[in-house]
């Protein structure tokens, strides 16, 4: 008789399968080759086109080998400007490098899968080289014809597609003869390495990783600053210190700081006045620039100075003459600013000197409370005061300064770089709904409404703690183009569910023995892609304390949903990996019969590569629940029967029972014999 306690499947059987397993689908295809057409020459780097997020290499088109191309190979797990990439695949302009191809490829000797974009290599020299030679101012007509017109056409095209460039600066524009080519805008997040001179004040004040992805007005501003450089023939602020430049612009305004000191062509004055205003809403957009370029004249008055009061607010060792400057001062001196909230100096200054009654009232409401504020509430109040003082500026909280749209990217960076303090601060910003408060201070726009909904959803998801939620979930909700950052998927660029399952299937051969088939990042990535709003539970095993918190079962449920969404493609490696992790759960099952049946079913399911079947077996069939219930009943029966056996084996009870039953039988016999005798005797006497 076979030993029913002996398992019919062992982990070794699945591991042996994985040893010889070769996945049918592998991400990336041939090594150093994108889409079977573009070969990436990973031994020929191009540092001049590289960025902090992507390395550039020479690329060769197998169809047109003479084309001058380069490939951007993105680092593992960096956020991509997906919207820009999608739009630029079809957008073509002679003054813009063309994006020829993109996708996932296996790169380098380790053949790790990376996201790759192939672009045309711009010919010529960057404008920075021309400007460094100095003394070559470009005449107004040439500037308009050769530089501003193509750039404005590009910006118009971008605006129509809902994207922005945010890398318009002399270092990213190449001059070849009489034509220019604008370099790429996808190798890094929006405006990450942009020279602050080419950023409007609201983006100057924002940390490089926290800038909004879409900032069309910043592109127009950058074109105006480029025009200023070219018109002067040199870089006018090359020696300026960043912080002092910011203070000057905040105090006097961009036009007064950047244009006024120089003798610029009169014909460009309107352009500068239109673009370098301090209010984002008042700046010219791409269409206005095009109109101006076609000859329309606006006769704009010189922007007024940014001063709002004659008597400055003394704080942080300087006098602030307007609200924006004070907001920046408060953030720059965060710890000193906190005690000032209680003394009512800011509202008084706003009321008496700046004549901003509404702003003063709002700040009073934010800072005055019937009960003393906790340190955290004080900090949140300060962040709100800063927003009220400078509504067009970024959200500023402790060491973080970020646009609302850039919170997700900032969070992604902080998590990747393991900057725990930044993660904590960003989580507080989201949790305190500072983004919602910031949006309340803006004029209503559909763009902001959508963003508010997205942030609200992310906040709810972050507050939940189960697998598929928490900070990781917020990360993927706020960065839809972000690849999965799971350490398990290192070397794999995963942005879709199908890519994730394929990567896990491939990894099964190396990691099944030692690692779990998933982690919180993978769970959050799947939940985000599946748009799950409720914490995933396994109700079928809720009654079992050992199983209800089992991470493997939750992962199994998530991966099953992912497989279904990805088109039910079989993944045999992954199912074997999952089976290895699920086998110990079978060991916890009491019924040997059910255990053996599940083991047999498990073998069949993994052979078919169906995660959904595995999930059905372990979750939907409620086998564990039935096992638990039946075990409880069987245990009760066993105990009851054990008691009865003990009773039957006991001699005291038995002798008493024997005595009672024996005497009862004896009595019956006596009566029977007596009646029979009487009957027989009477019958004999009376011949009955």
């Amino acid at each position, binding site marked *: 008789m076979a030993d029913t306690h002996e398992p019919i499947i062992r982990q070794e059987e699945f591991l042996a399968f994985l040893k010889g397993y070769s996945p049918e689908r592998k991400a990336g295809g041939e090594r150093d080759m994108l889409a079977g057409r573009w070969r990436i020459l990973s031994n020929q780097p191009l540092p001049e086109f590289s960025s902090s997020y992507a390395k550039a290499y020479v690329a060769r088109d197998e169809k047109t080998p003479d084309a001058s191309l380069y490939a951007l190979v993105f680092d593992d797990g960096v956020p991509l400007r997906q919207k820009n990439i999608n739009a630029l695949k079809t957008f073509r302009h002679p003054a813009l490098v063309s994006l020829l191809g993109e996708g996932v490829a296996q790169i380098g000797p380790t053949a790790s899968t990376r996201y790759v974009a192939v672009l045309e290599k711009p010919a010529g020299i960057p404008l920075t080289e021309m400007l460094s030679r100095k003394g070559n101012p470009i005449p107004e007509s040439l500037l308009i014809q050769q530089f501003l017109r193509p750039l404005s056409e590009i910006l118009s095209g971008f605006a129509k597609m809902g994207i922005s460039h945010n890398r318009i600066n002399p270092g990213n524009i190449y001059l070849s003869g009489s034509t220019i080519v604008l370099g790429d805008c996808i190798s890094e997040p929006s405006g990450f390495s942009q020279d602050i001179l080419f950023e409007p004040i609201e983006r100057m004040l924002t940390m490089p990783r926290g800038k909004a992805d879409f900032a069309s007005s910043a592109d127009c501003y950058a074109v105006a600053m480029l025009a200023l450089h070219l018109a002067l023939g040199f870089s006018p602020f090359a020696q300026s210190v960043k912080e002092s430049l910011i203070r000057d612009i905040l105090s006097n305004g961009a036009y007064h700081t950047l244009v006024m000191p120089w003798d610029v062509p009169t014909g460009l004055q309107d352009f500068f006045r239109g673009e370098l205003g301090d209010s984002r809403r008042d700046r010219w957009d791409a269409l206005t620039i095009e109109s101006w370029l076609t000859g329309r004249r606006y006769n704009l008055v010189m922007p007024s100075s940014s001063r709002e009061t004659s008597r400055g607010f003394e704080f942080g060792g300087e006098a602030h003459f307007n609200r924006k400057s004070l907001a920046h001062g408060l953030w720059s001196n965060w710890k000193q600013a906190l005690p000032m909230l209680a003394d009512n100096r800011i509202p008084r200054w706003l009321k008496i000197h700046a004549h901003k009654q509404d702003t003063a009232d709002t700040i009073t409401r934010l800072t005055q409370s019937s009960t003393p504020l906790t340190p955290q509430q004080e900090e949140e109040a300060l962040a709100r005061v800063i927003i009220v003082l400078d509504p067009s500026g970024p959200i500023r909280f402790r060491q973080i300064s970020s646009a609302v749209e850039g919170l997700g990217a900032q969070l992604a960076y902080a998590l990747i770089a393991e900057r725990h303090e930044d993660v904590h601060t960003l989580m507080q910003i989201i949790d305190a709904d500072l983004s919602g408060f910031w949006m309340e201070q803006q004029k209503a726009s559909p763009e902001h409404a959508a963003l508010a909904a997205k942030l609200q959803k992310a906040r709810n998801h972050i507050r939940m703690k189960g697998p598929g939620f928490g900070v990781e979930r917020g990360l993927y909700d706020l960065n839809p183009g972000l690849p999965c950052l799971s350490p398990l998927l290192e070397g794999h660029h995963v942005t879709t569910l199908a890519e994730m399952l394929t990567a896990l299937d491939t990894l099964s051969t190396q990691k099944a023995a030692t690692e779990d088939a998933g982690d919180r990042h993978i769970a959050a990535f799947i939940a985000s892609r599946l748009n799950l709003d409720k914490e995933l539970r396994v109700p079928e095993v809720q009654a079992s304390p050992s199983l209800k918190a089992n991470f493997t079962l939750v992962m199994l449920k998530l991966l099953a949903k992912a497989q279904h969404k990805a088109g039910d493609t079989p993944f045999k490696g992954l199912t074997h990996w999952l089976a290895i992790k699920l086998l110990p759960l079978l060991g916890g099952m*009491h*019924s040997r019969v059910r255990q053996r049946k599940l083991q047999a079913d498990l073998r069949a399911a993994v052979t078919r590569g169906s995660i959904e079947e595995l999930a059905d077996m372990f979750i939907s069939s409620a086998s564990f629940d039935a096992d638990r219930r039946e075990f409880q009943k069987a245990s009760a029966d066993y105990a009851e029967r054990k008691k009865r056996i003990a009773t039957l*084996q006991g001699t005291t009870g038995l002798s008493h029972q*024997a005595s009672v039953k024996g005497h009862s039988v004896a009595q019956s016999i*006596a009566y029977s014999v*007596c009646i029979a005798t009487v009957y027989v005797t009477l019958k004999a006497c009376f011949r009955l």
Partner: protein
Amino acid sequence: MSTNLQSTSSEAADIQVKRKKTLPFVLMFSIPAMVVLKMGFFFLIVGMLPTLLTMALVRHSKSYVVSTVAAFNFTGVFPDLLSISLEGGTPRAVLSHLSEGTIWFSMYGAAMLGWAIVWLSPAIAMLFLETIYRGRIRHMEHLQKKLEEEWGPDIKG
């Protein structure tokens, strides 16, 4: 010692109660019997002496002993009692029956048989019960083993 004393006093009280209950019943039975049996009633009393002795000696809680002995005793007395009655219940008939040793043997032997059965019946019943219970235990142990095989050692608790 005190236990024995208590036991003795409770037995005495028991007998007292029994007598009180039995006396009206005996009288109610004896008067018609004397009328019907005439001198045969004397034979009945003599024949049923073992039963009367048993009634006097055995505690009320062991009434099955009295009834078993009485039934067997009456089985031995009844044929001759009927014969005496049919012969008219005369003193001669009674004396003639009492003079036969076999009649004494059948009356008192039957009572002794009753005593023997009372004494032996628990042992015999014990033998039967042991056999039945052993079978039951074997069956239940078989079921327990099946549960252990199905659910493993955890079932033992």
